[in-house]
Each structure stands twice: as C-alpha cells, then as structure tokens.
C-alpha cells in the first residue's frame, strides 16, 4: 500500500494518467479545497477592489480590513432560512444549484496547474471543459423555471440564449487555438497517429505545443492569435454572466434574475458556482493563449541565473503581501479599540511572510513554480473581471445578441480560416 502511494512520487505524469487512485483523490481534494478558498478570497478581493474603484472602503469591520468578511458571510448564509416558494417545483428547485456547482467544479478535473499538477489529463481535455462548463446553463434554466415566477423565468431564458450564443463564438476561438497546436514542433501528443499534422485537445498538450513552438498562442500569427484571444476573452465574460453581460441577473431590470427566489445556502451555491466558473474559463484562456504554467520567456531567458530569478517570484510575492499587511498594521489607529485588529493583521502578515520564506526553500520553490505562474495569470483575469464590473454599463439583450452573432461569430470564423491557411502556407 505504501509502495502504491510512494511509487507515484517518482513518476512524471498526472495521477489520473498514472492510474493512482490515492493521489488522484488527494489532488481532487486539494484542487477543490483550493478553489473554494480562492472563491472566498475572490469574494473579498472583489468587494475591496470594487470599493476602491468607487472611492469607498468596502468591508472594514469584520476582522482587519474586513479580512474575515467572507467567513462571516458564509456563516450568515448557512444559518439563514432556506425559503422554497410554495408553488415551486421542489425537486427541480432543489437540484438546480447543485447542477451549476457540479458543472463548474467538474471542469477543474482537467485544468493543468503544471505538467504534473493536474488531476488528470484527458485526451479530450478542452472539449470536456467546454462541454461540462456549458452544462451550467441547464442549472440556470431549471432554477428560473422551477421558481415559478416571472422575473426568474425571464432571467433564465435570457441566460440560456446568451450562453448558447456565446458558446459558438467561444468554440470558434478555441478551435483556432487548437489548429495552432497542430502546426509544427509536434510533441508526444501530436505524433503517434502515423499522420503528422493532427493537433491535440489535451490541456497539457496544448501548453506543451506552445513551449515547443516557442511562442504563446496569443502572439502566434500576430494578430490572429490576439484576435482569437480577444473573442474568447469577451465570450468568457458573457458565458459567466458577469458585467457588462450580466443580463440574466440584471439587478435593475430583473431584481436578481434566475436566482431571485433563492436564499440562504442555495443562493450561496449559485455564487460559488459563478465564481468557480469565472476561474475555470480564465484557466482555459491562460492554458490556450498565455502559455499555461510556463513562466514568461522560458525559451529566450534561459540559463541557471534566469531560472533562479524567476523561481524567486513566488516567495517575493508573498513577502510583498506581508509587507502590505505590515504597512496596514503601521497605519492602524493607535487606539485600544483597534488592538485586536492590529494584532490580527500583524499575525496575518506574519503568516504570509512565513509562507513567503518557505517558498524560498529550493525543493518547495521548484515544485511550486508552475502553480505560481498559472495562478498569477489567472489572477490577472480575475482583476479584469472586477475592472469590467466597475467600468461598463450593461448591454441590452438585443445588443448582446448582436455582438455575439454579428460581430464575434464572423470574426471568429474569419480568424479560424486565416489561421488554417497560414498554417498550411507557412
């Protein structure tokens, strides 16, 4: 048994591929726990960042700088009364949030945080991701229908139309990236069929293809890769129902859209699903166009020195966060009332600093590299989501459809055709 556990450590594949159930379960727990924590952190960060965009302070009361706010919210939501409308279809009403949650969490099975840091590497990776993430629309429609109320129904119908339409543009953008994987420098995933020129759908394979072609697909066939990425970046915002495409839950029109009738824990499941889906689609974008887990310039800035420099980033990031926390401690009012908060913030900073120091230890440093760069890239997208939300007004429904079908779709087809032509010609 112990052998079974330790034998995986020396392998260089994902636990799913190695067929190691124990490590696969461990990875699943780590990833799902990590995502849950990330959603909570995102919750706090969004409220703080949005507040600062809007010259407010955001949560300040629960814990130093509101750090404990997500936990307080979670407790509040869990203890809140769970109202089921009398005329609702109880079973469908009950199961809808679960479907959304499952759909958005199942996607992480194939997200590659590193060459071996994924639960598994499916041969149909990206197809699986798109398919499973699109299942969440079912939950939305079911929630809207089961509430047996007008606003949720309109929200659900809007949402389904929106998600189905933007999936098309999204799919085209993804296909143009997949076409790029097939072009040259075939890795282990490209060969083996006897015919060269087949690409890969595997998430790990896509990242490796970028490594072998020495370019992020964002910059490949400039500006084609860039346009495809742009289409995806727009479509993914629409796909996750975030501003400026947040029509299904357009607050000012439909009160809260499909989850108007939900409350308490079930409502929090919707939120959990939404944020998890945001992180998931950002992971797709990072994997397909931004070189996945690779650090910037893995091919030009080579050598031990550069490796060392880049491997210091994770630790430095945490030290910087710790420094910010300590600046916050300095700026805390010197008043007995704030003593607990000051100590708490100092402790938090100390923990961050400690993590930062641990990340400098060479074995940890080398193992954490991939994950760090992946998460850093995803975090950039998360910031963009908040930025959009603070900046843009909301589209109207017909305009949204117009953008999806009349702008993104033709451009997507054009980019796909041009990519294929360039791939053959070059």
């Amino acid at each position, binding site marked *: 048994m112990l052998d079974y556990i330790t034998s995986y450590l020396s392998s260089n594949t994902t636990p799913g591929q190695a067929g190691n159930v124990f490590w696969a379960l461990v990875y699943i727990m780590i990833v799902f726990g990590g995502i849950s924590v990330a959603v909570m952190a995102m919750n706090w960060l969004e409220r703080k960042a*949005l507040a600062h*965009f*809007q*010259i*407010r302070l955001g949560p300040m009361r629960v814990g130093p700088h509101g750090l404990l706010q997500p936990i307080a919210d979670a407790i509040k939501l869990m203890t809140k009364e769970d109202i089921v409308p009398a005329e609702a279809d109880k079973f469908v009403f009950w199961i809808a949030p679960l479907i959304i949650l499952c759909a958005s969490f199942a996607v992480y099975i194939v997200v590659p945080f590193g060459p071996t840091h994924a639960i598994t590497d499916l041969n149909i990776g990206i197809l699986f991701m798109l398919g499973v993430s699109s299942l969440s629309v079912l939950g939305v429609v079911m929630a809207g*229908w089961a509430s*047996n109320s*007008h*606003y949720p*129904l*309109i929200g659900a119908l*809007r949402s389904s139309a929106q998600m189905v339409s933007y999936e098309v543009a999204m799919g085209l953008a993804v296909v143009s990236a997949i076409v790029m994987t097939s072009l040259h420098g075939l890795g282990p995933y490209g060969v083996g069929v006897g015919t060269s020129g087949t690409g890969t759908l595997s998430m790990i394979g896509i990242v490796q293809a970028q490594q072998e072609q020495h370019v992020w697909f964002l910059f490949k066939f400039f500006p084609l890769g860039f346009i495809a990425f742009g289409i995806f970046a727009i479509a993914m915002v629409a796909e996750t129902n975030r*501003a*400026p495409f*947040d*029509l299904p839950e*357009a*607050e*000012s*029109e*439909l*009160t809260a859209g499909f989850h108007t009738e939900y409350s308490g824990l079930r409502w929090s499941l919707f939120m959990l699903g939404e944020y998890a889906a945001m992180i998931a689609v950002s992971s797709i974008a990072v994997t397909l166009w931004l070189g996945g887990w690779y650090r910037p310039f893995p091919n030009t800035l080579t050598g031990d020195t550069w490796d060392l420099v880049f491997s210091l980033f994770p630790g430095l990031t945490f030290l910087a966060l710790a420094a910010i926390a300590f600046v916050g401690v300095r700026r805390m009012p010197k008043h007995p009332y704030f003593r607990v908060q000051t100590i708490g913030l100092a402790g938090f900073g100390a923990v961050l600093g400690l993590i930062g120091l641990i990340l400098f230890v060479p074995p940890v440093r080398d193992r954490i590299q991939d994950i760090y760069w992946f998460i850093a890239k995803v975090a950039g997208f998360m910031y963009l989501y908040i930025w959009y*939300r*603070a*900046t*843009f*007004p*909301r*589209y*109207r*429904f*017909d*305009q949204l459809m117009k953008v999806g079908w009349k702008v993104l779709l033709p451009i997507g087809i054009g980019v796909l055709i041009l990519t294929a032509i360039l791939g053959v010609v070059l």
Partner: protein
Amino acid sequence: MTDRTMFDLKPTDPKPADDKYLSHLELGEPDKTFLDTNELVINMGPQHPATHGVLRVILKLDGEKVLGTECVIGYLHRGVEKIAENRTYTMFNPYVDRMDYVAAVSNGLGYCEAVEKLLNIEAPPRAKYIRVILTELNRLASHQLWLGTHALDIGAMTPLFYTFRDREEILKIFEKYCGARLTTHAFRIGGCQYETYEGFERDVIKFLDFVPPKIDEYEELLTTNRIWLERTKNVGVISRADAIALGVTGPVLRASGVKWDLRKAQPYAAYSDFDFEIPIGANGDTYDRYTVRMEEMRQSLRIIRQAVEKIPEGPIMAKVPKVMKPPVGEIYHSIEAPKGELGYFIVSDGSTQPYRVRIRPPSFVNLQALDIMVRGALVADVIAVIGTLDIVLGEVDR
C-alpha cells in the same frame, strides 16, 4: 410557466372584470409574434430596485418587447395639497420640501414666490440672489443624483459613487447655511430667514472650482462609452410634438428640441440678471436628455458664479405682515425646477389658510410620457427611460 395567472390576458379573451388596472390598457391588437403564445404581464415595482421609489409599472410583454405599460402611482401619497388647506401659509412652507426631496430648495422657492405674488410683495435683491445661488446648487445636486441612479440603472455602478461624493459638497453648503441637508426649508415668504454665513461666498467659489473637473470625469466614464451610447441612443425617443402635447417640461422637453426654459421664458427671482445658455437636444432620445442635463450642470455653475460675483448687499427680508391674509383671489406661479416646470396654483379666500393649493409637479407630468417612449422597446429600455425621466415619487404622488 404558460399557466394562466391573474395577469395573463390573451387578446381574444374577454377582459376580466375584476382587474381594474388592466381594463384601462388599450393595447389594440398586438403584432402576431413568433410563437403566438400568451403575452406575459409583469409587475415592475412597487418594490423594484430600479423604479426610483415606489412606482409600480405594469408591463405587458411579448417576450422582451414591451407592448404597453400602465403606471400605478399613489404609494407615497401623503395628501400634501389637502394638508395645505388646514395650515397657514407660513406653516405649509416646510411641507413642499417633502415633495421633490432631492430638490427641496426649488420647491420652497416656487412656493414662496407664489405666495409673495399673492401677497403682492417682493423679496429684496440680496434675498433673490441667495435664492438663485441655492436653487442652482440644488439643481446641480439633483442632476448629480439623477446621473448616478440613471447610470446605475443602466448598469454602470461607479458614477453613482462619484456623483454622491460631489453632491456631498453641495449638501455641506446647505447644512452650513440653514442647518438641514435634504429638506432645507431655506426660504421664507418674503425673502430668506438667514443671512449667509461667514465664508459662504468662499465656500461656493471653492465648490465652483472643484466641480467642473468632476463633471468632466463623469463624462469621461459615460459620454463616449460604446455600451452607454448603444443603451441610450434612440432609446425612449419622444418627438417634439408629442412632448409638447403631453405637457412634458424640463430637460425632457428640451432634449426634444424645444427651447423652453422658464428661467428665460418668464424670468423669476433674479434670473433676468444672468447670462446663460439653454442647452437643447435634437433627437429627444435618452442620450440627448443625458447631454442636456450634463450641459445644464455647467450652465448652473455659470449662473452661480455670476450670482456670487454680483451679489448685492442689503436686507434679506421684505416687510411681511405677521399674520398673512392674502386678498381673495388666485395665483399660478411656476418655476423651472431641476425636473421641469413646477407650478403652484393657490386660491385664497382671504383667510390665513389657503382655500385650495394645487401643485403641478414636473415628475407627475413627465411620467405620462413613459408609455409613448417605451412602446415597442425592450424591458431594459423601460428601466433606462424611467431613469432618464428623472422622476421622484414623492413629487408624483405628493
């Protein structure tokens, strides 16, 4: 979900007698639609985040398309006009502040001037100038609040906080001047009760220098934003003729291209002394109303600056009898409130209390235009149009 609810109405069905609201709806034969399924009748409000208070709009929808609307008002009715009949002229003055609570100063100005006209007295010039300054500041505050909520309705969250930040400066001046921020009760019949405080001019000038960059900031966020343009251009269009026919006033009328502003047309207070433009729009759509109001903010600043520079010295209160007993008669006096023409029709029977007060609130009249503006538009446009009409339910319901 195609179940019949009490609001579902098919065009061929006999109208249910018990539904007194829908029976007014004269929608005619709706267009035959894609599926010819039942129309959806939904109830927007009175507890809805975007109806600016307690407006209830019954929407008859074909999918997302609006076939007709019916406004149901009165949820905030406090009987202001009836109260007036049991109060003396002075006692009624604070009540008018509670109508358009975001532009309380304008309400007070209109009422005071109306009663002054009835009593045949005139406020001294200094009082008139103070009135102009405060009213224009109030117009600015009202427009800022409108902009924030309107943008929020359309989905842009951020301008709300910017406008509230800057509106705060105005409210501070009000607070310093008369002690209240919202329901100011700033003016009295015959002038002003309070002399300006020490440093009033300085505060106002400081504000005048402070706010133009802020207005540019709002415009930066919205005016050229593509989504904002798409959401507001050609939305809620009301033609010049329709606007005049419906009695729409204020920025809504001016955006349709009618150069009608009571400050120029029949100058009251000290407005004839100042030099300012009346911005007008061309298409009468939501975007024009937006630009008109933005420009009005700048013009207000211009007026305030002139007023502060030219403010005369002198008394602030005319000679007013202790017990006001206006001669028998009636008077109609209207001013250009931020939202449009605010008129007071007062009938006096010679006693200390008015025999009848009728108020013509701009929001109430402008709200009539909602149906014309949103027919055939989408649900989201209803929100945008309610926002752009800049209604205050306290004033609609009185």
